[in-house]
């Protein structure tokens, strides 16, 4: 057990090192350089470009830049090239903004997909299953941005709630219940939107997984024992159908970062995804690389977590 944890931490550190190298190289392979931005700008004199390049070590060889960058990252001194502010502080602020969106979206996705998928599987071919199938394919097929605008128009015209941003501008002095409701409205629409696609896809997975398990011999054995249908479905079948979702559960962690670039952009939500997107446009390497590094950490942490979860839920896996 402890040897597994130790081994896996060592392995994941090695992986992380390679990820850091590769992502660093890929960024520098991309055409263009931060120092070349807008050469037509008269204020951008060659001297300025030169000063900029020396200040941010862009004149040094790549491996030196690599060492400088990760040294700064681990000492926390890393700053954005755009406004000279601490990258970690910026990310933390944006992370706190993204967090409620992520939590509500994930909760909606996981709590709704399972009942829908399981019910579809149990009553396969029935009216419920067919309409669930129809709606999930509908939601998968509709482009997210299009659906978002329809939803915004609907909410704004029907409820007169402006849903862009994290809160309505100029609400500062309103009594707290109004502020609170305003926040809820602003949070609910983007998270529901982010969850719809997730629900549509995940409920399909749940359905097919459940159907596969329902056809297994041990489910027939459970029925032959005379167990009531609820015990057959929710104890014997569901417990086995859940196993593959442990892997997926570990992989929702990286969704914390950049999981919702489109939605954050549409709703002007000042979250991580939008920050990363803007950093890419501005070629703000420190932010891009830090976000990249953090999401790699989250992916590895997620897989580690799901490995540990497997130990708990699947008796066949022992260390």
């Amino acid at each position, binding site marked *: 057990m402890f040897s597994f944890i130790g081994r896996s931490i060592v392995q994941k550190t090695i992986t992380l090192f390679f990820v850091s190298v590769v992502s660093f190289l890929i960024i520098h392979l991309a055409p263009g350089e931060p120092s070349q931005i807008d050469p037509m700008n008269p204020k951008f004199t060659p001297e300025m470009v030169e000063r900029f390049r020396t200040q941010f070590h862009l004149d040094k060889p790549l491996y030196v830049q690599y060492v400088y960058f990760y040294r700064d990252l681990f000492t926390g001194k890393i700053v954005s090239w755009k406004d000279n502010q601490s990258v970690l502080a910026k990310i933390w602020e944006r992370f706190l903004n993204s967090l409620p969106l992520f939590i509500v979206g994930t909760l909606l996705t996981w709590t709704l997909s399972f009942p829908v998928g399981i019910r579809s599987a149990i009553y396969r*071919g029935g009216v419920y299953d067919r309409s669930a199938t129809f709606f999930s394919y509908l939601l998968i097929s509709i482009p997210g941005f299009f659906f978002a605008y329809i939803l915004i128009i609907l909410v704004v015209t029907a409820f007169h709630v402006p849903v862009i941003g994290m809160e309505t501008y100029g609400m500062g002095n309103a009594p707290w219940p109004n502020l609170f409701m305003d926040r809820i409205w602003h949070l609910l629409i983007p998270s529901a939107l982010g969850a719809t696609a997730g629900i549509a896809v995940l409920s399909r997975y749940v359905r097919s997984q459940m159907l596969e398990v329902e056809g*297994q*011999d*041990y489910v*027939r*054995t*459970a*029925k*032959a*024992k*005379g*167990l*009531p*249908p609820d*015990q057959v479905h929710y104890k*014997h079948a569901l*417990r*086995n159908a859940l*196993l593959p979702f442990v892997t997926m559960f570990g992989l929702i962690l990286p969704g914390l970062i950049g999981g919702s670039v489109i939605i954050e952009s549409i709703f002007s939500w000042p979250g991580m995804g939008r920050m990363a997107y803007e950093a890419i446009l501005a070629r703000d390497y420190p932010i891009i690389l830090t976000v990249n590094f953090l999401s790699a950490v989250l992916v590895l942490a997620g897989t580690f977590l799901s490995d540990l979860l497997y130990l708990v*839920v*699947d*008796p*066949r896996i022992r260390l």
Partner: protein
Amino acid sequence: MAFQKPLLRTEDLKVYFYGRDKISRAVDGVSYHIHAGETVCLVGESGCGKTVSALAALGLIPSPPGKIVGGRILFKGTDILSLDEDAMQKIRGNQISMVFQEPLTSLNPVFTIGDQIGEAIRTHETISQDALDKRCVQLLRDMGIPSPEQRLHDYPHQLSGGQRQRVMIAMALACNPDLMIADEPTTALDVTVQAQILNLLKSVQEKASMAVLYITHDLGVVSGIADRVYVMYAGLIVEEGNTRQVFGNAVHPYTMGLLASLPDRKKRGKRLHNIPGTVPNPAYKPDGCPFHPRCSHAVESCKTVEPEMIPLEEGHRCRCPVLAKKP
């Protein structure tokens, strides 16, 4: 025996599977009966409808696509096809239990042995946890599983194939059923383990005086355990009788073919007999006698006339008008 009411009787049972554009007549008018305490064998090749006709008795035909389209199944005199789901649950596992073919996949991998056996008992009886544990241990001990107290906390993957089948049998016996259906319980096991399992089944049957419906394709097994035998072909029973009649006096050409293809010391060094052709797809059965394309005795009328069961002697009947007429 003959005047006693049978424990289980199916009459003209028909189970069809509805595919996209064709109907598979998996079981097409099967009648069999089992008396209390008796061992009856259903014999036939793969796909002849043996398992389906037994699953029907438990109401476990996968539906859709399967559907019982005709006939009756009488268990202790009540037609179980007319019972609702709740009443069926009281019969399943409690009065009729089943041992399946694949011990490797028939146990749920994520629950312990004790949990799965105990569950069968708890479903049908109110029992304290202590008494339940004791009974599970006793069941496992009866099955010849060493150190049953520890095995109770094992998961199926920690046991061997033979042990898992013993667990399956323990589970089937947990509520002292009147009838146990054993669907090829030894097919997936090694030959040496097969013999052990067969002996085990025989001894528990004697102890519990329960009836066993044994489904197999292995005639060698049949001669060792059966009181009576039903030979099935393409969804029909083609010959029935007691073991002596079927093995010593087979009339139907299919039964004779099966018997001739058994390996035997006298046939050493010679080629084994095989029945030419293959079992017809249940969706495309030939007209008339389903066996006529493979039968060396077939006459013109076999291609058009569906044969009836013809009584030969006490309890021995056969579905071949050509050979049955000969004395």
